């Protein structure tokens, strides 16, 4: 009986080890997603306002600061928008604009990608405006973890 039990137990052990390895891997993904939720949300809160905050008198450093919050294709798009629209307008109209995040929430979270819903307030002054203008908006922000740092990889209005 004992000698027959040995191979059976060995098979059982192998199955359990394989199952355990699978569970451990899934649990690791789950726990990195949980970390991503809070880290991605903190990054969305901190970084989103930067994209819409600049002063025509300190444009190069403001834009550099905003660009450092972006990654991938979105970084390229942002740079293009700044070069073709933001920079010329800012100089012409003496634009000073400051965006702040009022609320932020997690739409979805994976280990390396978080999608956040962000409610923004933006105050703008310019020579085109007789009084400062307040704009409120909602944006969906995609954040990617690049070399351990959460950066904005996409943004669209909702």
């Amino acid at each position, binding site marked *: 009986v004992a000698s027959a039990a040995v191979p059976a137990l060995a098979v059982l052990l192998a199955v*359990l080890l394989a199952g*355990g390895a699978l*569970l451990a891997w899934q*649990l690791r993904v789950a726990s990195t997603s*949980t970390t991503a939720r809070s880290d991605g949300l903190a990054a969305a809160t901190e970084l989103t306002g930067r994209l819409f905050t600049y002063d025509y008198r300190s444009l190069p450093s403001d834009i550099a600061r905003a660009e450092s919050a972006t990654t991938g294709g979105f970084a390229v798009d942002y740079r293009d928008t700044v070069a073709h629209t933001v920079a010329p307008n800012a100089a012409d109209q003496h634009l000073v604009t400051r965006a702040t995040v009022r*609320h932020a*929430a997690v739409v979805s979270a994976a280990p390396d990608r978080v999608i*956040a819903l962000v409610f923004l*307030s933006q105050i703008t002054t310019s020579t085109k405006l007789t009084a400062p203008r307040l704009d409120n908006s909602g944006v969906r922000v995609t954040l990617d973890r690049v070399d351990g740092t959460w950066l904005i990889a996409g943004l669209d209005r909702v």
Partner: protein
Amino acid sequence: MPVLIALLLAVLLTALVVAVLAVRLQAHHDEQSRDREALAAARRTVTDLLTVTEAGGQPRLERLLRGATGEFTQQLVGQSDSFTTAVRAAKVSSTGAVTEAGIATIDGEHASVLVSAVATVRNMQTPGGQVRPYRFTLELVRHGSTWLVAGLEFTP
């Protein structure tokens, strides 16, 4: 015989570890479905709140009330009569749609949820409809297995 005992011990230990891992993974899955349910409840409430039709008003209000508790229930009850009258008088109809929803904070009992939505509003002046954006913060509380909206605020 020592081989048999060693194997038995290894099987038992591994089974124990697998059981612990399975319980922890299940807890994570429970959290995920809890999050999904809170978001679904918030989406449902916002959609119903922004949807106005003369005929569907009463069933929609009843559904809103079933998903509400506390202060939000008071708000709904307090405003429903004047709201319904205004809608009828203006011959307004509105279709609400949630564009995005996310969880700001959540634990086993409470959730704070952001929802952005649009309402397509039609009246006699604008039969084609006018799209208006809305943003909300909702506070939800868990009653048994369901999430109820306890507070709702329009945010600018």
